[in-house]
């Protein structure tokens, strides 16, 4: 049974209540369809119109002739396979680096009591106060010429992977989760002769599946959706992820082809969302109320 909300079940059960409810319900369905689904429909079908049809006024709601050439042209003309592959490499690497390094660091801070651990955690949490975008320029200069070793991460996927690790939010999420894990299980394993890495691998990680899932989704979405940082890092056109390539190529390409490319660029994240929507929505809802 649902808990009672603003309106009481009794109000809703009355004939007038029922009429108002169904009117509002229909209104919301229509509004959602128009506001959120229609633009997506317009994009998907727009790519299938002919160049003449897409420029005509008034526009056609349903394409007169369905062309798939927009999609095939986008795939070949805009080198979408390369750019998609670049994005996949960048996102997968950022995910892997974040998962390995943030988990290890969070485990150390939570369970291994390193000297200055409190200070380090404080330093990590302090970065939450620094809005990411305000630091992109000095971050870019650092990536362009790493201190001490003087190499450049520009035009290299490492330029995405390593900065992605410096994610205080994900690290703190992991650390807080590890803090809650029962101590006695780990102590028992230690008495049985398990090393720190073994405890992390065989006890902590299997118990942390939910938080690892959340961090994984956050990490993947963040890289896939990012624009400003990859725009700075990749000046080399062939290495650009799809988000940057789309903007660079949008100037001199036919509208139907560009729209088809936009649809293709959206598919991976939308597909992931539709598959994992329960978890993603639950994660957003839970993250809010608990701070």
């Amino acid at each position, binding site marked *: 049974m649902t808990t009672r909300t603003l309106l009481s079940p009794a109000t809703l059960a009355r004939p007038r209540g029922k009429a108002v409810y169904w009117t*509002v319900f229909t209104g919301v369905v229509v509004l959602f369809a128009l506001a959120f689904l229609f633009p997506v429909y317009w994009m998907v079908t727009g790519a299938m119109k002919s160049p003449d049809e897409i420029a005509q006024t008034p*526009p056609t709601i349903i394409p007169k002739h369905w062309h798939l050439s927009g999609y095939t042209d986008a795939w070949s003309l805009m080198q979408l396979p390369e750019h998609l592959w670049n994005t996949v490499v960048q996102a997968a690497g950022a995910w892997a680096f974040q998962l390995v390094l943030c988990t290890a660091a969070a485990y150390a801070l939570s369970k291994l009591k390193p000297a200055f651990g409190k200070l380090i955690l404080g*330093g990590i949490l302090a970065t939450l106060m*620094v*809005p990411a975008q305000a630091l992109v320029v000095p971050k870019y200069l650092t990536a362009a010429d790493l201190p001490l070793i003087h190499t450049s991460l520009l035009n290299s996927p490492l330029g995405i992977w390593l900065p992605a690790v410096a994610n205080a939010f994900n690290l703190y999420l992991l650390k807080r989760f590890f803090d809650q894990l029962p101590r006695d299980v780990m102590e028992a394993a230690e008495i049985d*002769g398990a090393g720190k890495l073994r405890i992390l691998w065989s006890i902590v990680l299997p118990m942390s599946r939910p938080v690892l899932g959340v961090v994984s989704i956050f990490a993947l979405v963040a890289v896939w959706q990012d624009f400003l940082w990859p725009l700075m890092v990749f000046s080399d056109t062939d290495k650009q992820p799809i*988000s940057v390539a789309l*903007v660079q190529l949008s100037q001199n390409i036919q509208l139907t082809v560009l729209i088809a490319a936009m649809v293709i660029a959206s598919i991976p994240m939308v597909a992931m*969302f539709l598959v994992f929507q329960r978890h993603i929505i639950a994660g957003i809802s839970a993250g809010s109320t608990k701070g």
Partner: protein
Amino acid sequence: MTRTATRSPVEATAERQVQAPPPAGGRGRRRLIDQARAYAFLIGGLICFALFSWYPAIRAVVIAFQKYTPGSSPEWVGTANFTQVWHDPEFAAAWRNTLVFTLLALLIGFAIPFVLALVLNELRHWKAFFRVVVYLPVMIPPVVTALLWKWFYDPGAGLANETLRFLHLPTSNWSNGTDTALISLVIVATWANLGGTVLIYLAALQSIPGELYEAAELDGASLLQRVRYVTIPQTRFVILMLMLLQIIATMQVFTEPFVITGGGPESATVTVLYLIYKYAFLYNDFGGACALSVMLLVLLGVFSALYLRLTRSGEDDL
């Protein structure tokens, strides 16, 4: 993993002996090994934070006082960068646009999700459908959203004007008009992001105990009074939290003006972050870019600190 998994029994016994009083001198070494082990786990993350968070933060402040172009040695110039960007005609425009954008985003992008969440929470059917559909735009890459709306705003065959014509309303210049460009971008940002806000509100609304509404209704509170005296006070914490988050996020807006308007027309949509980008990559003036970054950092740091304090104290309340 293999190393620790296949440790010799000798090593394991050695570890067990630690619990017994250790021989003199052993404790220090033991502690050192523990520390080395802890830092072995920590080091990768630590290096990344040092390189890409701490060092850039310090460097932003240092470079703000230098004449800096990559390749040549930096030169101290005092506050010259600050006075220079201050006198840039785009400086005032960028701050004004950013503040107006943030205010409009708060007005539009804040009220709409709250009302939507209120209505959605009352609906008994198709709940999963509404949640998925409202979050769908959030999952579309921001660049795609921006390009999509750029096409909608097209003064010729754009969907926005077509709709107005269909409704027999006067058409607009949308993102191409000096007075309408900024609000056009706010609409895009609202469309793209409101899904997340709605979901968070929904979660907050669901945690309100039903008895409160029941009691209010028994006392004769009308629908609006129940919203005013039950819903809003009960969700006050989440409202405040999201408001701060939104201020922080919208003040860093970049993708929409970069992709849709290119800062124009006549710098009507140049934002602070866009100006930072221009200084670095168009003028090759990293000192100016860092001076602007520091200003943005100081302002946003205040809101971030407020937000962190709030979530911390909120946690204590829970």
